[in-house]
């Protein structure tokens, strides 16, 4: 290698050549999921408020996913502390290198969305925003929060970003907010925008450098944050006294699976809903408009469904990260063997006496619990603003063309499409982890994600309905086949299989009877396919675990 930087780049690319693609792959479905409900909206003009909303959600999700993936691929900065490199060189590599990666990936994704969805979507402004976001979070992520001064200083750059974003681009802190007609989103960058961006980046860089230098020096002192940590540790220790005994292996395994894996689904939902309620209270109080406040609270329902799906979507990919390990033999050759899964099974767990059927039951139970809890929170976040809106007669959502949206139109949409859809989709993703094996490109294992993607792509074609109906027939055929296979292998009893089918039929009934106005035939077919894909894990998980357990 010619230089330290070249060596670092080589090592980084060699280690992460596939992971780099993962960010792009993971961020794509978010756009598809968020765009699909708006497929009837004319997306060809960024002047439309709905499009601005879509762009806001998508760009934020994109930055979060891609930024998260880049951080994950970069690994720990502290591993470089013992190398003969200056702190500046380390920080430069992580900070500016990461910024470049984020910029390239966000630009690439937005360019693709431009091609597929909205030709007017701006790229440069969004990329600039993404890079500033990346920089702002660096001082927070790099190094632990150990002092009061740091707790105040680290979010300083973040504050600049937030003020800039709200002042310039319509975060709802003033009347109309993001929905006001004059708002645009990153389609023009002024000189002051550039100056704010560069200043924010530089402040973040200096803070990161200072933080990493402090970390590298190995200095430590007991601060008030240590006391806070001790306080939580004492609560944690007290909770240890409530350690339970389990009634059965399935109970124990379901507890394990929930704690180590599926709890990722309800936690973000639980975190985001109170934030929106707080925002709603602030906005409602400052604008003296209950309806506007409740509309913000209602925005929390959509946000909660998105954060319900994203971690569920991450689960299969995270488990893949720990799927294989390369072992060196005495002859110096390398062989790939199955290793522990970071969020799923491990050799220790597989050494416990439990049948594949029981293990599948535990996993399905835990996934259902997680998705159920998340959905219950989402429903609560829907019930509160709707209930208050109904009780006080407030208009929840104002549309400039049709006026206030009636509750009898709004509620079925949210209930069936948003809440029901997110619950089923998160369950499908949460259980995919045990069927996806990235080393085997077996069509049977990949049918669920392929059908999901195919249905979404079908929506873009003029023959969306017949195409998705055809895909629905494939899904139904495979569901029947999987049911017969599972019952034959005794992975599920006849009674169990019948109950799953009954539940499926009940979901179909709710979908057909409760589907809101404007949902359309395509929506019904998509919903039906989603119900079938959610039924599928009950018949395929035990078999997938068998494959996973024994190689």
């Amino acid at each position, binding site marked *: 290698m010619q230089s330290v930087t070249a060596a670092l780049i080589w090592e980084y690319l060699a280690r992460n050549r596939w992971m780099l693609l993962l960010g792009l792959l993971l961020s794509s479905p978010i756009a598809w999921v968020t765009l699909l409900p708006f497929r009837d909206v004319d997306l060809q003009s960024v002047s439309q408020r709905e499009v601005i909303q879509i762009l806001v959600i998508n760009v934020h999700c994109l930055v979060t996913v891609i930024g998260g993936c880049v951080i994950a691929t970069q690994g720990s900065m502290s591993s470089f502390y013992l190398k003969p490199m200056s702190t500046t060189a380390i920080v430069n590599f992580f900070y500016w290198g990461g910024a470049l990666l984020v910029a390239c990936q966000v630009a690439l994704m937005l360019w693709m969305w431009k091609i597929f969805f909205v030709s007017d979507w701006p790229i440069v402004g969004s990329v600039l925003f993404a890079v500033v976001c990346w920089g702002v979070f660096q001082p927070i992520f790099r190094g632990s929060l150990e002092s009061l001064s740091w707790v105040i200083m680290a979010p300083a750059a973040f504050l600049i970003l937030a003020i800039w974003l709200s002042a310039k681009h319509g975060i709802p802190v003033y009347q109309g907010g993001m929905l006001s007609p004059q708002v645009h989103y990153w389609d023009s960058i002024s000189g002051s925008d550039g100056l704010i961006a560069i200043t924010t980046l530089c402040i973040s860089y200096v803070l990161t450098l200072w933080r990493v230098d402090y970390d590298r020096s190995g200095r430590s002192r007991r601060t008030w944050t240590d006391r806070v940590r001790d306080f939580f540790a004492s609560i944690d*220790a007290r909770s*240890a*006294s409530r*350690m*339970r*005994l*389990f*009634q*059965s*292996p399935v*109970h*124990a395994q379901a*507890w*394990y699976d929930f*704690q*180590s894996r599926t709890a990722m689904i309800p936690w973000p939902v639980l975190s985001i809903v109170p934030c929106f309620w707080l925002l709603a209270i602030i906005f409602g109080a400052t604008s003296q408009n209950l309806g506007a406040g409740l509309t913000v609270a209602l925005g929390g329902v959509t946000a909660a469904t998105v954060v319900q799906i994203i971690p569920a979507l991450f689960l299969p990919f995270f488990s893949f990260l720990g799927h294989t390990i390369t*072992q*060196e*033999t*005495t*002859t110096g*050759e390398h*062989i*790939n*063997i*199955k290793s*522990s899964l970071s969020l799923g099974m*491990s*050799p*220790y*767990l*597989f*050494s*416990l*006496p*439990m*049948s*594949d059927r029981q293990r599948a039951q535990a996993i399905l139970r835990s996934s259902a619990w997680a998705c159920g809890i998340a959905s219950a929170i989402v429903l609560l976040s829907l019930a509160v603003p709707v209930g208050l809106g109904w009780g006080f007669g407030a208009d929840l959502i104002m549309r400039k063309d049709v006026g206030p949206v009636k509750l009898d139109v709004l509620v079925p949409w949210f209930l069936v499409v948003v809440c029901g859809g997110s619950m089923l989709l998160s369950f499908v993703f949460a259980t995919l982890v045990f069927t996806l094996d990235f080393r085997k490109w077996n069509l049977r294992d990949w049918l669920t994600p392929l059908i999901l993607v195919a249905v979404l792509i079908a929506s873009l074609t003029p023959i969306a309905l017949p195409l998705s109906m055809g895909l629905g027939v494939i899904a139904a055929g495979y569901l029947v086949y999987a049911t017969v296979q599972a019952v034959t292998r005794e992975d599920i009893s006849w009674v169990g299989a019948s109950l799953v089918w009954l539940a499926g039929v009940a979901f179909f009934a709710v979908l057909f009877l409760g589907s809101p106005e404007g949902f359309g035939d395509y929506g019904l077919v998509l919903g039906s396919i989603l119900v079938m894909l959610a039924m599928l894990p009950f018949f395929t998980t035990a078999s997938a675990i068998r494959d996973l*357990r*024994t*190689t």
Partner: protein
Amino acid sequence: MGDSTSVSYNQAVEIRNLSRTFGSKRALHDVSLHIPRGGVFGLIGANGAGKTTLIKHILGAHYAETGSVRVFGFDPVTHPVEVLSRIGYMSEDRDIPHWMRVQEIMNYTRSFFPKWDASFAEELREMFDLDPKQRIRTLSRGQTARVCLLLALAHRPELLVLDEPSSGLDPVVRRDILAAIVQTVADEGRTVLFSSHLLDEVERLADRVAILHEGRVLLEGELDAIQESFRRITLRFEQPFSEAPSILGAIEHRGSGHEWTYVCRGDREQLIQAAKTVKAEVVHETPVSLDEIFISSIHGS
């Protein structure tokens, strides 16, 4: 295979002609092993010899590509519950969930084993000085090994499988592990299978051993019998040699000129006879340690 077969089965583990490849690499080649019930079986081999792969076949984590594996008469792949409920396993990686507390992982593991002996588990926990409220991730390497050992022992398994149990541990923890092995064997009918490359441990504890090298079994049998079949003899020849003269049964040699020392395998009388045929007299004869047998076998292979 049903329960009646397993009850009357006198082999804890029976492996016949087992082969396994990973990609183009053959990890196990035509391995046949019989581990009788009772006693301690030591599986010896260098890193990458195939010890863990073999153990994973016993646990049902790998299919037998060719050949068969039976544990207490059951195929571990098709009968995981029947097999694993009788096994206490301690992996080399100590891959227990690190986010759990000591008491939590005890409760969790307990639910899988109907024969879990809670008082014995508590006794072990106290003996190992483990805080039940402490999280696994905060434990030292030795303490983690102790937790793994506790989990493997507390249901009083019929077969205790320890994969490199002493690897990277301090002498105190090693002593605990060796004591646990002795204790397990003291319980009538229980079997211990442990893999190691720390041969002094194997020599001290094992009744039977198998030496595995590049996926093949080089030697298998009772440790005493194996040690008796090897000897080191020093021969004095009438004339000097620049290279060691060939002796029947010799596996390894060193020396120069008139005097050469051989590590030989075979009947003592036959070896002495062989020495006489090359006009050499035995000047020294000593028993061979397991360490030397292992190294000689690997070099000889």
